[in-house]
């Protein structure tokens, strides 16, 4: 499963909408509960865990991608 697939699945949006600029302010389905779902699914998909600042700070697809890259995941 690709990064885009995980994000699209977690947020229940078309993969075409998973652009770097997409975020909590632009995707109406990116609610707080979906954000939790996204975090949980990313943790499972990449076998890692996020700390509080990473969970709270990743509010756009780009920021999520940057957090993963900082953890050594190529996305």
């Amino acid at each position: 499963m690709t990064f885009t697939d995980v994000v699209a699945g977690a947020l229940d949006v078309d993969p075409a909408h998973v652009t770097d600029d997409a975020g909590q302010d632009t995707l109406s389905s990116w609610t707080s509960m979906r954000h939790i779902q996204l975090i949980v699914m990313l943790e499972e998909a990449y076998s890692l865990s996020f700390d509080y600042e990473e969970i709270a700070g990743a509010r756009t697809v780009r920021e999520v991608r940057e957090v993963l890259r900082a953890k050594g995941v190529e996305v």
Partner: protein
Amino acid sequence: MDTRLRWQKIGRTDVRPVVRVGLLASYTIDPLVPHLGVALHDAGLPVAFDTAPYNQIVRQCLDDTSEMARVKPDVLVVAPRFEELGDELLTAVDAAVSAARRWGSFLVVVLPAVPEDRAYGQLDDGRAAGTAATAHEARETIRAELAGRPDAWVVDAERAVRAVGTAKAHHAAMFKFAKIPYTEAVFGELGGQLAGVLRAVHGLTPRLVVVESGAGLEEPARWLRESGARIVVRAEGEEVADVAAREGVPVESAVLLTLGEAAAGSAPVLRLGGKPAGWRDEVTRSGLLDRLPAPDRTAPRVRHSTRETVSLDDFMAGLNVEVDLEPVGPDSAAKVVEVVSRAKDFTLGTEKLDLTEDREVFAVRVRDKFGQYGISGAVGITGGTVVDVFSLSCVVLGKGVEDVVLQRLRAEHGDLVFRHRATPHNQITAGFLTDAGARIEEIP
């Protein structure tokens, strides 16, 4: 992950739920939903969930206008933890028992896990007043009060935590972020336990187990017999449907227990693996052991709590909630902005708070008998008469904080107008203001 995606997919189908399950917990229990939902869907019991805001067990159960009271779910699942409720835990369970009785709900209480933090360190286990002793006593009190009731059952968070392993059971960052204490694995285990209970309660556990003749399955058959299943050995070549008909059981209530590729027709099959050492786990995971005991008319009368169920007013008064409103200063500015941006349920629809705008802004600090919540909300007043920021963190909802803030605002500023923008999530704010008789100015 697959479970979550499957639950989303199920949600898009037109399968009509036949059971409404209400979830109340002292923590955020939403991650349980996909695990329990999928397990019950697969068992042929489509369900819908209603989840109340976290840590509002007592209020939801005692307030007849609460979200859960309006739903009156068929099944009420209540999951308290010692960490949030302390010595109020039994009060929460008593309130749940009372509510389930009034609403006609089947009650399932999730026995709380023994806290990891021990008051007396390594010597805690030997102390009569230690964390472990106190927790075990409360757990057994709950079990004793609910065991034997025809309208209630318990499952056990301790067992779920143990199955996963303590080191992999907790998610500190997610707890700090969203009050979710457990990992997905624990919610998966809890979902399995709850699904087992609800399958049994709704008569979905197969009654008849048909065993292959000469298959060497005597031991699993014994486990199943001891759990209350009817065991029948089928003759060679006999169809499961014929065995079921002979035993007077619908074929859908029969299951074939086998080692090989034996044909079962339309009946479900439990095919055990080649290693007998794994059979116990396979049988347990299949749910075939999940059976309610037969009614025992000679059983002693159910032991009910001798504690009086606390009233909502008494409970709220006992929380000793204290609310302070203080002007925002350099020390509190960042936290206030964060609280406003994160408040989704109780907010006037303010997404971002700009502190450079011409507006009086107050930080709301809250504490109660359970501890300090710090800055938990904010109020902004423009022009002395218009409230355009009124946001509270979920952490402090259900404690009457919003009432206290509104009273203070009215006392100090007189009649105010609340500028409200509806969002997909802030209905409770409009409802609260309407009930309080506040003047609301709706904005697009």
